């Protein structure tokens, strides 16, 4: 089984999602992209209780959905599910007609406005939040 690189790649800020973000982050180098605003975070070394601490999110594919080369991401607490969906769709280069759904507990889709930080508090374990994603043409 291929091992993921230990260092956690940083999810580009949502403002950089106009085509800049994911294509610039190379999974192979495992070097975090220095963001324009928030501090680069190795994730596990931040002091506990720091509200800016990012959440380690592990993304797993369900069904025939393409698997992301990089599965482990450091995500700001306030990133919404919808923001994460948009990011993964861009990363996987899905077409507009394809929907992407994210699930916690491999069974429940949180609302689009739900924040990753809240989900981590409810469903996180071992210092990370596992989210499953699945693409589908659910409508139309």
């Amino acid at each position, binding site marked *: 089984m291929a091992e993921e690189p230990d260092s956690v790649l940083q999810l580009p800020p949502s403002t950089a999602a106009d085509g800049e973000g994911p294509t610039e982050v190379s999974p192979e180098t495992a070097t975090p992209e220095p963001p324009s605003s928030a501090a680069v975070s190795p994730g596990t070394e931040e002091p506990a209780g720091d509200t800016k601490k990012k959440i380690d999110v592990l993304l797993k594919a*369900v069904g025939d959905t393409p698997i992301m080369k990089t599965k482990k991401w450091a995500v700001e607490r306030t990133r919404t599910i919808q923001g994460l969906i948009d990011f993964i769709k861009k990363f996987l280069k899905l077409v507009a007609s394809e929907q992407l759904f994210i699930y916690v*507990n*491999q069974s429940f*889709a*949180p*609302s689009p406005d739900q924040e990753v930080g809240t989900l981590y508090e409810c469903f996180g374990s071992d210092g990370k939040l596992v989210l499953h994603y699945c693409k589908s043409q*659910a*409508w*139309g």
Partner: protein
Amino acid sequence: MCIFTGKFTPRRKEKTSCVNGIWRKLSSSMEEDEFFGEKTFQSFCAEFIKHSQQIGDGWEWRTSKDCSEGYMCKTHFQIKPGTQVSHPETSAHVQTCLPMEEALELPLDDFEVPETTTGSEVIKYEYHVLYSCSYQVPVLYFRASFLDGKPLALKDIWEGIHECYKTRLLQEPWDTITQQEHPILGQPFFVLHPCKTNEFMTPLLKNSRKINRSVNYITSWLSVVGPVVGLNLPLSYARTTSQDE
């Protein structure tokens, strides 16, 4: 797993499925689809409502006059700001989906419906979950009206739909949301079309079988389709969707 009996199917040479307690052979194209019968639907709804009662989420079960069919329903009220709003802090509730749930915790009596303020209105949203015999999946019916009974048009309901769905749905609304007669009440409701339900439910259910975990179909399904029409399930339902047995 046979969703009806709750038992895992023994290995069979032929792929079979149990629908309404009747085993039948599946053709290779059908074996990937997940179907369930009315009884299974009712059983998942019962589980769902049990949790709803625990957290005060307001879902109820209703039956048709002859009690042969039933459905799940929930009503909630939302204040829609008009041109003049006497309680500006509540206007934020309309813009995002999540705060709508907070409004549910207030009994109707506690709603400050200003009588003298112009423009501010209370809207009643109704969500019904019925079983479709033809598609053999649950279907979401919904409607919205003002307190005087005047119904909201679909274009007004669009405002409550999350931005992320608007583009997609507005492109082809006729494929997705239609107006139909409620099978039991006989009144017009908007319906989220069920033709693609299996498409997103099947991978989820297959995955749950793979990890040997049972899933409440209704909870999973509603968590996906609900937000499209402004209905968000509290996160606590997620804990009950899958239980290791």
